[in-house]
């Protein structure tokens, strides 16, 4: 069966909602739409992360995994900013397709959630192991 830690699940959900909401709202209130210029940087970061994860399948480095987790969190929060402003820009150009827009935001949400979940769950597991060691 599944070994998720339930407190980590709840914390990750609340954390993701908070992160997502604040970044999305800040992208809406940024009237100059300056986050759109992050697009190229974010796409190349995503491509680097993809090749890194493929490479990591074979060498299984712990450091690369950490870079994937925390760097990926950073990139995906950037994508929330970028995607929100891209949706507004497309709407300004006359795009009425809210389904594709929702799908791009959904992808960002899930990516943030999975990474936050792994980070929190790992930290809790490490803490409980340390507690057990201290008690001995």
């Amino acid at each position, binding site marked *: 069966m599944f070994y998720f830690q339930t407190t980590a699940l709840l914390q990750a959900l609340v954390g993701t909602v908070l992160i997502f909401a604040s970044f999305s709202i800040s992208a809406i209130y940024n009237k100059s739409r300056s986050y759109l210029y992050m697009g190229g940087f974010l796409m190349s970061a995503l491509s680097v992360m993809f090749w890194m994860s493929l490479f990591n399948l074979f060498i299984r480095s712990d450091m690369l995994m950490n870079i994937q987790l925390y760097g990926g969190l950073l990139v995906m929060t950037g994508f929330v900013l970028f995607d929100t402003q891209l949706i*507004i820009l497309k*709407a300004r150009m006359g795009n009425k397709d809210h*389904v*594709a*827009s929702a799908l791009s*935001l959904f992808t960002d949400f899930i990516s943030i959630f999975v990474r936050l979940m792994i980070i929190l769950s790992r930290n809790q597991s490490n803490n409980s192991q340390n507690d057990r060691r201290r008690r001995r």
Partner: protein
Amino acid sequence: MSFADSFRLPAMDARSLLDLADLSKEEQTLLKATYRTLALTLAAASAAVYLQLTSSSFLFHSMLPLLASFGLIAWLATTPPTPQNNTKREGILYGVRFFFFFWRRLCADVDRVLWRSLALSRASRSARS
């Protein structure tokens, strides 16, 4: 302006946060529809995960949900994004997300990645269960 004044924050009106005047009416309705669709998609996905965590069925292990989600993805890709079609496409999107997260392998994969990252030995895993 005195030196102390340079540390003072400019007066900020909290009502300016509710000011979305730079977005036109159409953009606001599209944003609302986007966030509504996002919320319902997340609800569909979490409903599927909840179902497979609480109940047991042969369907979770079969390839049927995955095939259903692939079929729905093909349908979604071939439906043109016209305003008349948008309600239908929204429904297809919920179906895609529901069936994709209904598939047990996905959860098992996330679970395996999680446990590989936790680097727990088989002994501690059997002690837990």
